């Protein structure tokens, strides 16, 4: 029993699971952080400036009481507040496009925390989640996908001692586990307190919330709170989803093994195939092996079906991995990675420009400049950090 516990510990410590999930979470954190800066942009000097609604001396006193830090407190000059605000927006943007690695994520956290502390009256549960989850994301391999990998991290990690590099995977697993635990805590606490509330018990809570002017969406909310069935279903499904959320996480964590009892057997039969997969086919999150004909014949029908399913997954995974390369090594992958960044940043820019109703001409001009700048920056960074041939260093 102890041996099997140690074996599963080794398996967990070595498995880089959910890299696509944490990478998507990192993109989301970057996007939400960036939009926080964008949506407050017009009012930034009033909200975060030293002569705004919270004067600098009052802010510094409140900060001393809470025991927190904020870069905004370092100087009472309006120029300083402006600089910190814009640098923060830039840091959020770099997290969104996946530039700068985990150090960039740490910088983003420092700026985001600082701006939240500068005006605590603005923050909500989503912001609370953001500042808790970002340090957990820093443990994970959240730049493996949806990012501009310049190879700098791989280059640097080659210089680390082996034992330090070997920590990457257990830390990733811990980070993923911490994020899952945090989400479960939020949903279960929120769900259990809702179960105790009379309006949630009646199934009418959604009706009350959607009528409060601050939460109303004119043209949409009326149709929801005016429909009795929607209110009832919405209220109950929200509560049920929150309370039972941890069961979903448990299923996602153990699901594939439970659904595929023969998977390990297939892999164990074929050591030479397992070696091949390390150099050949690579799929996000997990790897797949193709067994020989004899091995397939010896298996029950259920296992053959499982094998076919895996083959389909393998093709899809291979297709996807071309678009989001984990470690770009070929020219085509560099181009795709660069294109991905450009398209994503232009899309965000167009959304922001649309938000402020800018002229189409200006939007197109700035988009072109942005695309050109990113192409040059990407090419320059590739030249600076040329990957070592055949280096598969853990980042």
């Amino acid at each position: 029993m102890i041996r099997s516990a140690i074996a599963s510990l080794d398996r967990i410590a070595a498995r880089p699971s959910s890299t696509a999930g944490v990478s998507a979470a990192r993109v989301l954190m970057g996007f939400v952080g960036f939009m926080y800066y964008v949506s407050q942009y017009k009012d930034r000097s009033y909200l975060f400036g030293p002569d705004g609604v919270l004067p600098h001396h009052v802010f510094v006193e409140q900060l001393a009481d809470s025991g927190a830090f904020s870069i905004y407190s370092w100087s009472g000059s309006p120029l300083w507040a402006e600089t910190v605000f814009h640098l923060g927006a830039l840091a959020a943007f770099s997290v969104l496009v996946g530039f700068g690695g985990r150090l960039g994520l740490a910088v983003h956290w420092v700026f985001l925390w600082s701006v939240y502390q500068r005006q605590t009256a603005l923050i909500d549960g989503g912001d609370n989640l953001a500042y808790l989850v970002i340090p957990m994301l820093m443990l994970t391999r959240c730049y493996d996908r949806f990012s501009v990998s310049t190879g700098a991290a791989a280059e640097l990690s080659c210089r680390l001692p082996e034992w330090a590099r070997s920590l990457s995977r257990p830390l990733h697993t811990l980070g993923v586990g911490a994020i899952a635990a945090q989400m479960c805590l939020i949903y279960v606490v929120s769900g259990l307190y809702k179960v105790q509330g009379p309006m949630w018990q009646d199934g009418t809570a959604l009706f009350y919330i959607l009528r409060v002017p601050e939460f109303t969406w004119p043209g949409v909310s009326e149709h929801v709170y005016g429909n009795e069935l929607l209110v009832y279903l919405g209220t109950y499904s929200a509560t049920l989803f929150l309370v039972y959320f941890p069961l979903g996480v448990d299923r996602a964590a153990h699901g594939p093994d439970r659904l595929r009892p023969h998977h390990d057997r297939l892999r164990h039969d074929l050591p030479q195939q397992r070696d091949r997969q390390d150099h050949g086919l690579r799929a996000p999150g997990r790897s797949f092996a193709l067994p020989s004909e004899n091995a397939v014949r010896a298996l029950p029908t259920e296992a053959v079906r499982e094998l076919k399913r895996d083959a389909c997954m393998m093709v899809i995974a291979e297709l996807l991995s071309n678009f989001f390369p984990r470690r770009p090594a070929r020219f085509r992958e560099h181009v795709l990675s660069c294109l991905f960044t450009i398209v994503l940043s232009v899309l965000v820019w167009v959304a922001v420009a649309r938000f402020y109703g800018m002229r189409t001409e200006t939007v197109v001009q700035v988009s072109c400049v942005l695309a050109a700048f990113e192409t040059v920056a990407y090419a320059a960074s590739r030249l600076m950090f040329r990957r070592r041939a055949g280096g598969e260093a853990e980042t």
Partner: protein
Amino acid sequence: MTRRIRNIRRVALLCGVALLGSHFMLAALSQAPLSPAKLRYHGPVNEYLAPYFTQNWLLFAPVPLSDDQGILARARCGSGSVTRYYDVTSQHIERVHGSRFFPSRMSRLVTNSLQQIHNTDEVMERYRVKAQNDKKPLPPLMPHEKASRDEAVDFLSRYASDQHPPACGGRRPHAVQVRMYVHELPPWSRRDQPADSGKVSVEDFPWREVGSL
């Protein structure tokens, strides 16, 4: 993979699980309902969590926000004349309605400050509910509650004085008074009635000198 590396990974994973387990146990205790364990350990737990790991996951529970709340304000000008009450809240709510895709959060300056005015801890809340049920006099505000309330009123007064500059012919007012309103929207049983029906209650806060804010 060498034996040494495997052992390092095992130790890292076990230490990490122990640390994270302890952290989430404390975080969960901070979110649990009032209990003897929470009463005893609340201080040290809060000391560990605040300010970087503070959590609050009530999120519209157990009783969601169901009233239209906001503030009005009036100003006393340098000449001694007092203006009429002007609306501070609506313009920013309209801005929110105009753009639902990551709207400006200016309206939250008022709503979050109004929540801060009535902020209290779980022990005092339970004590007050009990006193109300037993028809006994309500206990006065505790020093920390009073400090939090004063801070929120100062903030709202400062905000209100900035929001209506023409109140004193374009000059900065001498003092400002904030009036909080709570408009109880018609309940589910009377949902067919217009939204502007329903009881309105107000609370006036003391005058605040603008120069001292």
